[in-house]
Structures are given as structure tokens and as C-alpha cells.
């Protein structure tokens, strides 16, 4: 990406300070995940029954949990799981949704069949679809990504399908086709480059909602294994101690909210910069 297009991408954020703040929070989350073992003051797995359920203090800023583990350290390490699930879901949704959507738009007969299948999958509410997948596959991190990703594969396919149908009738695409351009050329030169911006918007929203989905699965005990630190798992564990140790609820929950909110802000800022003709394919939900 040239420096010129880089400033073009930064412009929506500079014009909107709150979106810039969202971007900063995301960057902080990425850094927290990358340097977790260096940033965290304690070992997130270290058990110390002597200090179990200690309220926040000078040593343990966020307090300790029922095993005496340092909450701050666990919150920092959980950023890894959040980013892993989020990026996994985005990669899965885009890598399946984009080819299916583009092919469906370019080959109407194939598209008719594929889009009907997408319609059928969309008859299953996202969380229910995820739960059904977990029953079949069993609970694990990879399966959580797959289960949540399936619900967003369908929305991504619909969006890509709608956009490609629109792009296909653009004058420059028709001109290129009439000059003998093949399908592969059209897709790589005209369609995919035009899909980049809307897909970036879609990726932000999918990432945001995957955070909530993953937290729900973890909370139900059907997501990441309980020994892995994740914000959802931390909330599920602290639920029992809600009246004795209310501080345990604050920080993991706040992290989920802050991450999802930041992603939504970024997505919103990017969406407002989109070509108005593209904007309407995005509903209110991801």
C-alpha cells in the first residue's frame, strides 16, 4: 500500500477522534497479547490459596480469584484467546464467504443453488447454529472458531454476492469484458480490488460480534477449555463468587465490552467512508 492510500485509510479516523481511540485500544490489545508474559506481573496459572479472593490492592491491582491467581495477569493473557478467536472467525468467514459470493454472482446457475443453501443456513439463528456445531464437533478453541464462523460466513457471502452483482454491471467491467477479458482477469483486476474496502468493514463487525459469541460459548462452558485464561471463562468462574468478590466480574467483562466497542467504532468509521452505493449492503448487524 502506498503512503497515499495509507493516509486515505487513516482519514476517517482522524476526522473522528472516538474512532481513533477505538483503533488505539485495538492496538493496545494486540500489544497486550503479544507481550503478555512480559507485561503480566504474575504467572496467570500460579495458585496461592493463602491469598484467595483478595480485593484489588497495591500488589494485585485487579485482586485475585478463588485459587489466588492474579486477575490482572489473567486478563492480560486472555487477550491472546480473544485475538485468536476473533481473527480465526474473520479468516474463516472471509475465506469461505468471498469465493462463494463471487462465484455465485458470476455464474448465476451455480449462484442460484449456492445462495439457496446460504438462505437455509440463515434460517438457523447464529448462536443456535454455533451450539449445534459444538455438539457435533465437541468443545475446543478451533471448534468455537468454526462454530461462530459459520454464522458469519453466510452474512459475508450475502454481502459479497450483492456487491459483485453490482460491480459486474459497472461500465468499466462490461468494457473490459467486451474487449475479451476472461473471468479470472475480471475477478482479479476489477472485482476483488473493489471488495477490499467493504470487506474491511465487514471484518471489523465480524471481529466485534465474534468477541461476544466466544464469550457466550465460554460462559456456557462450551468454548475454550476452562484452564485456558479467557475473558468469558473468567466470568463463568467468578459467577459463583458474585457477592463475595464482585471485582472479579469487572475487569474481564470490561475488556470484552471495550474490545467489541472499539471494533464497532472502527467498522462504523470505515463504513461511513465507503462508496454510498456499497454502504446499503450493510445492515445494522455484522
Amino acid at each position: 500500500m502506498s503512503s497515499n492510500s495509507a493516509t486515505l485509510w487513516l482519514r476517517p479516523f482522524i476526522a473522528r477522534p472516538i474512532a481513533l481511540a477505538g483503533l488505539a485500544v485495538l492496538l493496545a490489545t494486540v500489544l497486550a497479547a503479544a507481550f503478555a508474559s512480559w507485561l503480566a506481573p504474575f504467572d496467570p496459572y500460579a495458585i496461592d490459596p493463602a491469598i484467595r479472593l483478595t480485593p484489588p490492592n497495591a500488589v494485585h491491582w485487579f485482586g485475585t480469584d478463588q485459587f489466588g491467581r492474579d486477575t490482572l495477569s489473567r486478563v492480560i493473557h486472555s487477550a491472546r484467546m480473544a485475538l485468536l478467536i476473533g481473527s480465526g472467525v474473520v479468516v474463516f468467514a472471509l475465506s469461505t464467504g468471498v469465493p462463494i459470493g463471487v462465484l455465485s454472482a458470476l455464474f448465476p446457475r451455480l449462484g442460484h443453488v449456492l445462495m439457496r443453501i446460504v438462505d437455509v443456513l440463515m434460517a438457523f439463528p447464529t448462536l443456535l447454529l454455533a451450539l449445534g456445531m459444538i455438539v457435533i464437533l465437541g468443545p475446543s478453541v478451533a471448534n468455537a472458531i468454526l462454530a461462530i464462523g459459520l454464522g458469519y460466513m453466510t452474512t459475508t457471502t450475502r454481502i459479497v454476492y450483492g456487491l459483485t452483482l453490482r460491480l459486474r454491471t459497472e461500465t468499466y467491467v462490461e468494457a473490459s469484458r467486451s474487449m475479451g477479458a476472461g473471468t479470472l482477469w475480471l475477478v482479479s483486476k476489477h472485482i476483488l480490488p473493489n471488495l477490499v474496502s467493504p470487506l474491511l468493514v465487514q471484518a471489523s463487525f465480524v471481529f466485534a460480534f465474534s468477541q461476544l459469541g466466544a464469550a457466550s460459548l465460554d460462559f456456557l462452558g462450551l468454548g475454550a477449555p476452562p484452564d485456558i485464561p479467557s475473558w468469558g471463562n473468567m466470568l463463568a468462574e467468578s459467577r459463583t463468587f458474585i457477592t463475595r468478590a464482585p471485582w472479579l466480574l469487572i475487569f474481564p467483562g470490561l475488556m470484552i465490552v471495550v474490545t467489541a466497542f472499539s471494533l464497532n467504532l472502527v467498522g462504523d468509521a470505515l463504513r461511513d467512508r465507503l462508496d454510498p452505493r456499497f454502504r446499503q449492503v450493510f445492515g445494522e448487524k455484522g
Partner: protein
Amino acid sequence: MWSYAFKRAGTTAVTLLAASVIIFAFIHVVPGDPIYVLLGDTATPDQIDALRHQLGLDQPIILQYLTWTGHVLEGDLGRSIFFQAPVLSVIADGAETSILLATMTMVWVAIIGVPIGMIAAVRHGTWLDQGLSGGAMLMASIPTFWVGLYLILIFAAWLGWFPSSGYPSIFEGGLANLRYLVLPSLALAAPNAALILRLTRASMLDVSREDYVRTARAKGIRPWQVVRRHIWRNALLAVVSAFGFTFAALLSEAVVTETVFALPGIGRLVVQSILRRDYPVIQGVILVIVVVYLLVNLIVDLSYRLLDPRVELQ
């Protein structure tokens, strides 16, 4: 209108048929032989053979699907392993809680989401609009179970205003039992009110760009009259149809909330059935929810056409 209604009902039927294949396949792809799944681990070989024959599992898969569909159409969704009762009656037991919870949630959504969305639209572009829209986005980013846990902590544990969990039927304890649903419905309403708020705002802004709104303004009609009679009336349509979808989606979205508040609804039934490996119940719930979801979609679509003749032209 009629030709559209038939066409639309036809697509729904085809979608439902395809969905039923997936739901039927579910019980065959879950880990383990469906027979062991149905009988549990303690079954004797004789029992297994008997049930295999009785259920027709020794027959070709196509025939099995047709038999299953036939049973479903007669209202027989199989038997729950855990409850040793018909799946349909197990689901029906949870229906009261789920429907009342969804209804109460929609009341909050209507009270909170619609008026605030209208205010944001009327004050479009001001700091108030930005604040309200930003607040809505924040609400949509909060996990419902986190809100739920805080509501329990504050209003049940500390203040003692509402019960923290469970729900005894209103048919046994009277309407006062609805207080059990106040906190869960508020938790569930938060993100949905946010979505309706944004939709109300967007829909009103869309309508306010229409020519007839400009004409009304040009005629000198008072601004609030334009909002009330020209913009609001027409924007309402999109909002009301969103209510239909939201209500249908709530039945499954309530899974986590019902777990937090230990409500005996369909959502908690799913989670418990997953942990109990009670596959026929999971299958039944998925089927019921998908049917409700598709039917609501159909009804909303058709009533949309009936209420707004312009839709046909677009």
C-alpha cells in the same frame, strides 16, 4: 398480492424442507451411534436391536428421513432420554417462560429503543444524536450475561428488589410472578434496544429524504407535524417488521440469559440438554426455533406488503 404470497410461502416451504434435512442429519452426525444416544450406555444388546428395528434404523437413510418427517408432521418429535417424556411436551414446558421473557423484553425494547431513536433522528447531526448513537453502539457491545450478573448483584443481592433466579409459572402464582422476569428481560433488552434504536433512527432519516417530506415542509406544515404525520408513520413500518425478527431471534438469543438467571425456558433447556447429551431434545428445539423463525419472517414479509402498497413497485 396473492401471487406474491404464494411464491413467498413456497420459498419458505422449500427452505424449511432443506433445513429439515440438516436437522434430521444432526442426530446422525453427533458422536456415537444414535441407538446408544437414545438408550444411554446401560442398554442391553436385545434392547438395542429392538429399538433399532422399532425406529427403523435398519432401513435406508432416505426412508428413515421420510418416516421422521411423517412423525414430525404428526407432532411427534421423539422422546427425551433424560426426562423419559415426549420431546414436544418437554419443549412446551419451557415455552411459557421463553414467550413471556421475549414479550417482556420487546416491551423494554419498544419503550427504550423507539423513542430514543426518534430523538436521535430528529436531532440528526447534533452532539445529542452522536451521543445517543454512540451509546447504542456501546450497548450492543456488552455481553448480556455480564449485564445480567450485575443486575443480579445490584437489584437482587444488594437491594433485594427482585428475585435473582428461577421462575414459577404465573398460572400457579399469579401475575406477581412476572417480577422474576424483570431483570432477565432488562439484560436481554439492552443490545436489542440498541439495534432498534439505530434502526428507528436510520429509517426515519431515510424517510425524511423523500420528496413528499420536502413538499410537506415547503407547504409550511409545522416541523413536528411533518415528523409525526409524514416521517414517523412511514418509518414505523421498517421498525415494526424489525420487531418481528427480533422477537423470533430472542427465543434462541435467550440461551445465555436463561442460564444466568436459571429460568426454566427453552434456552436453558438447550444448554442442559447439551451437557446431558440429550440429543433428541436438542434436535427438537432447533426444529421448533427454525420453524418459528421462518414463519415469523413470512408473516412479517407479507404484512409489510399488505401495509405498504409501495413495496410492490420497488
